[in-house]
Structures are given as C-alpha cells and as structure tokens.
C-alpha cells in the first residue's frame, strides 16, 4: 500500500514536470507516433483489400469453375455445362420459380486510370438475367440496369471513381464497338470495381462461346454439400465448386501476405529507431534528476517505487505517441480509396479500413517500445551508489 502511494506521488511529480521537458519528451511521442502511424496505415490497407474481397463472398452462394482453374479468368464452361449446373440440387428458386443462377462471361478491358492516365485492366462481367436477384447486396445507385441484347453498361461505383469514361451517359469503345453507360451500382465489395453488361452482348462482342463461371444461390449454407456431391457425380461435368466465401478469401492471400511482410519489416526497423530514441530521452531525463532521485531514496522511497514511476512516465509518453500516430493514420487514410491488380488479373478498387482492433494492436507496439525505453534508464537510476549520486557527480 505504501509502495503504491509512493509510486503515485512520484509519478505525479514526474508527469507534472513533463511540460518543462517538452522538447526531449516529444522525441518519445513523435518517434512512437511514427511507428504506430506506419503500422496502422499499412495494415489498414491490408484490411481494406481483404475486407473488400471477403464481403463479395458468402456462405450460401457458390461459384462453379472449370475443374483445375483457380480464377474466373482461367476458367471456361460451355453452354451445356451451364444448363446442367442450373439443374443441380440445393439451388434456391427465385420469385418466378426458376433457380437463382447466373452464368457469367468475364473479360478484361483496358481503361485509363484517372490518377495516372495509364491503361489498367478492368473487369467486364457479362451476367445472366438473375444476377441482380442473386446478389442481394447490390443496389443500382443511379440510372438503370442494362437492357438485354443492347450494348449497355452498368458500372460499379469504385470503377466509375477510378477509371476514365465511366460517368453516367458516356459512351466508350469496347472490342471496337460503342457501349453506353446507363447506370451505376454499389455493392460494398469487389464487384464495385467491375463493369457489368448483359452476358449475351459481351459474348457476341468478344466472340466468346460459353462462360467463365456459374454463380448459384443456395437454399441455405448447408445445401453446399449436396450441390458439390451432385456436380462431382455427374460424368458430363468436369468442374470445381466452391463457396464464394472461400473463393474470394483465396484471392486476397498473396497481396495480404506481401503487405504484412512489408508492414512488419518497416515497422520493426522504425521500432528499433524509436526504442533508441526513447532510451536516449529517458536516460537524459533520469540523468538530469539523478540527485533528486538520490535524495528521494535517502528519504526512504523504495527503489521499486522509483522504477515504477519512471516506467509510468515512459509508458504514458508512449501511449500518447501511439494515439497520436493512430489518429494521424486514421485522419490521412481511413476510407482512402485506391486500386491495385488483384488475383483475377484485373483491378480491385478498395478503401483503407482503420479499425479499433488494428489501433489496439498498434498501441501494443507503442507500449512495448515505451516499456523497453523506460526499463533500462529506470534501473540505472536506482543502481547508482547513494553517496556518489547525492554528491551529484
């Protein structure tokens, strides 16, 4: 109890005199703010990318690809395949009684990116009539849906923001033919980066026969097993079926790992720098108060209380730095929208996501640096022989 009182009194003294040591204390705050800022921004990029793809996947929705292909782009299904798949069990029926199935053609088109003006791979998805009923998260935000058989486009919000020529009412050239943008949609997931049209129109423009994938809505999440068994058991079909949740999770893995490695490497190097900065500052702080600490010890303050007080000071500064860094990262990057090349060889538009969990994670780094930076100087402060320290030499 006495120890606690002593610690509190000493911490109060330390913290109250902080403003007078503002310059050197800022070293800790700014250094740690840097580490936390980097960590939060880079991991927010990872979470944004992963989240955008994950949101596109559900447990009660399945995607059928040609056996052995990893992505829609490398897959190919014939019209017969598509018909057979639509007859499989476990598929939910729509309002009109027909199964909720969409056979889709996927091609990549070149569109200039607004920010750089260079060509980017944008995904053009030709979808079946039930595609919108199937994807319940998708909303037409402006204009209307394309008319079957016409060269008309429904453009995702992300694609419209990032690439040239996709504003409502504009006409762009695809496969040598003019296409008119008649609507915009939002779905809050990877589809936002895509441009949609009627499957038959895309097939005829790109002289494609057949499809890349078939998407089905399951009666419930458990129906997947029945569907998979039925498709595997059909000798006429050579296909792989996955829940869309699994499919999209696999797609984000590579970039996710790359960003993680990068974030940890950069943050680790920075953390080393910040730790040395903190050590430097705390050593200086302790050295300046050497005599004062010696007097406290002579008065009967426990060494442990002194160590604890120094540590509390370091940790408070670290926490302040961490919060400053997280706030900066949040202010600069939360909801910041960018795009990059995804696993399907086309651009994925996504927004940074600074989540509380991420911030808590990064604050742990801050506290670890504060702990290391405070511990050694604190021990140093109480180790000096009392008589020597009192004389102030």
């Amino acid at each position, binding site marked *: 109890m006495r120890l606690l009182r002593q610690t509190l009194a000493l911490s109060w003294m330390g913290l109250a005199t902080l403003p007078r040591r503002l*310059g050197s204390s800022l070293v800790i705050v700014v250094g740690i703010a840097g580490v936390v800022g980097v960590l939060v921004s*880079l991991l927010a990029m990872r979470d944004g990318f992963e989240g955008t793809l994950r949101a596109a996947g559900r447990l009660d929705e399945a995607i059928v690809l040609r056996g052995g292909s990893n992505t829609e782009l490398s897959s190919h299904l014939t019209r017969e395949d598509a018909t057979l798949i639509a007859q499989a069990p476990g598929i939910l029926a729509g309002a009109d009684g027909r199964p909720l199935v969409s056979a889709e053609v996927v091609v990549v088109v070149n569109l200039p990116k607004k920010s750089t003006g260079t060509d980017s*791979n944008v995904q053009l998805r030709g979808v079946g009539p039930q595609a919108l009923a199937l994807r319940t998260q998708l909303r037409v935000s402006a204009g209307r849906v394309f008319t079957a058989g016409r060269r008309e486009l429904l453009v995702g919000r992300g694609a419209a923001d990032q690439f040239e020529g996709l504003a409502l009412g504009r006409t762009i050239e695809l496969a040598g033919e003019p296409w008119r943008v008649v609507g915009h949609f939002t779905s809050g997931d990877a589809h936002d980066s895509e441009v949609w049209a009627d499957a038959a129109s895309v097939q005829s423009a790109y002289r494609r026969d057949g499809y890349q994938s078939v998407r089905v809505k399951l009666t419930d999440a458990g129906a997947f097993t029945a569907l998979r068994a039925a498709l595997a058991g059909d000798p006429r079909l050579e296909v792989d079926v996955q829940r869309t949740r699994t499919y999209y999770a696999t797609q984000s893995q590579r970039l996710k790992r790359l*960003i993680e490695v990068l974030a940890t490497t*950069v943050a680790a190097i*920075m953390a080393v720098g910040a730790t*040395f900065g903190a050590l430097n500052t705390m050593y200086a702080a302790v050295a300046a108060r050497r005599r004062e600490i010696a007097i406290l010890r002579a008065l009967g303050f426990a060494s442990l209380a002194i160590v604890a007080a120094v540590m509390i000071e370091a940790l408070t500064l670290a926490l302040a730095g961490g919060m400053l860094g997280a706030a900066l990262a949040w202010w600069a990057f939360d909801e910041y929208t960018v795009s990059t*090349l995804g696993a399907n060889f086309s*651009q994925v538009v996504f927004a940074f996501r600074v989540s509380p969990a991420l911030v808590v994670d990064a604050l742990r780094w801050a506290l670890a640096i504060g702990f290391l930076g405070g511990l050694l100087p604190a021990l140093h402060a109480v180790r000096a022989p009392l008589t020597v320290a009192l004389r102030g030499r």
Partner: protein
Amino acid sequence: MKYLVLVLAGLRRHRSRSLLTLASILAAFLLFGFLDGVRTVFGAGTDTYGLDRLIVTSRLSLIQPLPLSQLARILALDGVAAAAHANWFGGVYQDRRNFFPNIAVSPASWLATHPEIGLGAAEREAFLTTRAGALVGEDLAARFGWRIGDRLPLEGTIFPHRNGSNTWTFEVVGIMRATDEERAAFAGELLFRYDYFDEGRTQGQGTVGWYVVQLTDPARSNEVAQAIDALFRNSDAETKTQSEQAFNLAFAKQFGDIGLIVSAIMAAVFFTVLLVTANTMAQGVRERVGDIAILKTLGFRDGTVCALVVAEALALLLAGGCAGLGLAALALPTLSRSLRGQLPPLAVGVDTWLLGLAIMLGLGLAVGLPPALGALRLKIVDALARR
C-alpha cells in the same frame, strides 16, 4: 589529427547516448535505402534495359489472344530483325502456392531474340529437338531441386490437355543461367515449346498471347511499333505495340497506388526518425556548454570550437547513415536474388547514395550549427559560472 581525437573524445563522453543515436540514424537510413527497393518493385524505378525489343499484345487487353498468322507480316516489316511468340500457360506445380511463370514459346526464335539466356550447346540442341522439352531458370531449378532429365507434371489451370486430364508432362532439357544480372527474370521461369502446347490444348489453336520483336536498331523503336499497329488497324485483331521497358513499366503501374502509398509512408517515417534523432543530438550539444567554455579558456579559436561541434554531429550522421545505406545495399540484392523471377533486380542506386549523403550533410549542419554559433557568442565567465 589532434582535432580528430577531440571529436572522438566528445562522442565518448556519453558513450551509450552516442551509440543509441548512431543506431537510430542507422535504422533511419536503412529504411531510406529500402525505399529504393520498394520504388523499383512497384515500377517507379528507372531501368534502362528492354529498349531493343518490342512487345506486341492485343489492343483490347492483355488476355485477348492474337492470331499466329500475324507473325509473317510482322517479320516482313523493315526494321524487324527477328520475332518470337509466346503464350501464358499458368500451370501449377503440385500446389498453387508454388507460383512461378510458365510460358509456351516458339523455341528457336525465342532463344534468338533473348540472347541473355545462357544455355550450353547440348541443352540448346535438346530444347530444339525434344517436343515435350522444357527449360527451367537456374533459381527455379534450385528451388525445387530439378535436374536435367527430370519429368515434371504441371496442372493446367487455364488449359486442360486434350487427352482429358489437366496434367501436362514436361521433360527438363536445360537449365537457363543468367548472363546479365539486369535481365535475369527468366531465372525464375519455365519455358516450353509452343508447338507442344498448341497441339495439346483443347481450344484456341493457332493463337498466341503476345509477340516479342527484336529490332535491328533500338533507335527506331517508336517507328517500328507504329508500323506494326498500322498493319493490323481495323482488322479483327488490332495490336498494341510498345517497348519491353514500357510494357514492364505499364504492367508494374497497375499495382501503382500501393507502391505510391508505401513510398510516401516510408518517406514520412524516415524524416520523423531523423528529426527525432536530430533533436536528441542538439540537446546533447547544448548540455556541453561547460566543455566548450573550457576549450575556449585553453585558447581554442572560436572557429575551431565551432568546427569541432559541427564535426561531432557530422561524424555521427555520416557513420550511422553510411552504415544504414550500406546495410540496405547489401540486403536488397540478396532479397531480390532469393526472390528472382518475382521481383525485379533491386539495388541502392547512385542517386539514392547522393541524396542520402546530402541529407546527412544538411542535417549535420542543421543540428551542429545553432549550438556551435551559440558557442561562438559564449562568454567564458558566464558559461563556467553556470556549471
């Protein structure tokens, strides 16, 4: 010489502080060196290779195939020395995490247009005569322990084999060795014969993914590129021709935003660390007023004292900075060698060294000068009394 001793003595005064400062400077400049690597990976680098070759792809997009019939017409153009064709295969060895590029190429013309591929005469001969033969890059061979004569099964993710299975079998007939570190991307790739591929696939026969055109004169690159595109304008398969360098750059730019953001963040961080460190150093100098007063009492000139203070700051920055950049210069090539084929060759460029040195010098002056000038104006009596 005696000044050097004084500078070192000054640094040794607070040995742990000097070491800690040195270490944080080192960390900052290590990061600064890595920045260069990140810029190169995401395509903002300034490679100069790849100007003597053109890449011809479909104007619609990279994935749109082109008819092989275009080859003869390209070859007939003035300024074209040779042309090869290729198709992305996208095969997977055992597990899809074992990613490496595998490409079907026209054997003889591919080797002719890519003289940087180092092959023994026997290996070359074997590739030209073995139908299922494959060349693997030296890094790829080392990664999986493949040797000449091994038979490799690849799962065709895009192209099923016409025999009904997804498995394509290749025989390793040669190991491609890098003769030029700048052009060693193939060291992580597998190349096999286009005729074997075209015969085995179930659809798209007679089409190719892209052409590689070797120029007679790199200076005519633009002119020939335009001639090729003009040749196929308004046809069913319009082309887009660019230099290999521009192609690589455009491809890397597709990852664009990420590279930009990472560079921006790293640069911001570098300056934060540096400012923090500089602040600590400036404080250290201010605490030494007493020492400076004693030096002046002993008869050191103002200018000399001033120089000593600045020299101390510069010594720390130069030592830490060069060590950090040096470490980055050592680490980057190692990193890119271990990941060759997935990353372009990385190195700390001359520009970066110069910029780094400029920052070290500038910062040394910024940190050292104000207290040094303070030392100039210092009255000895006051300074000694303050102790």
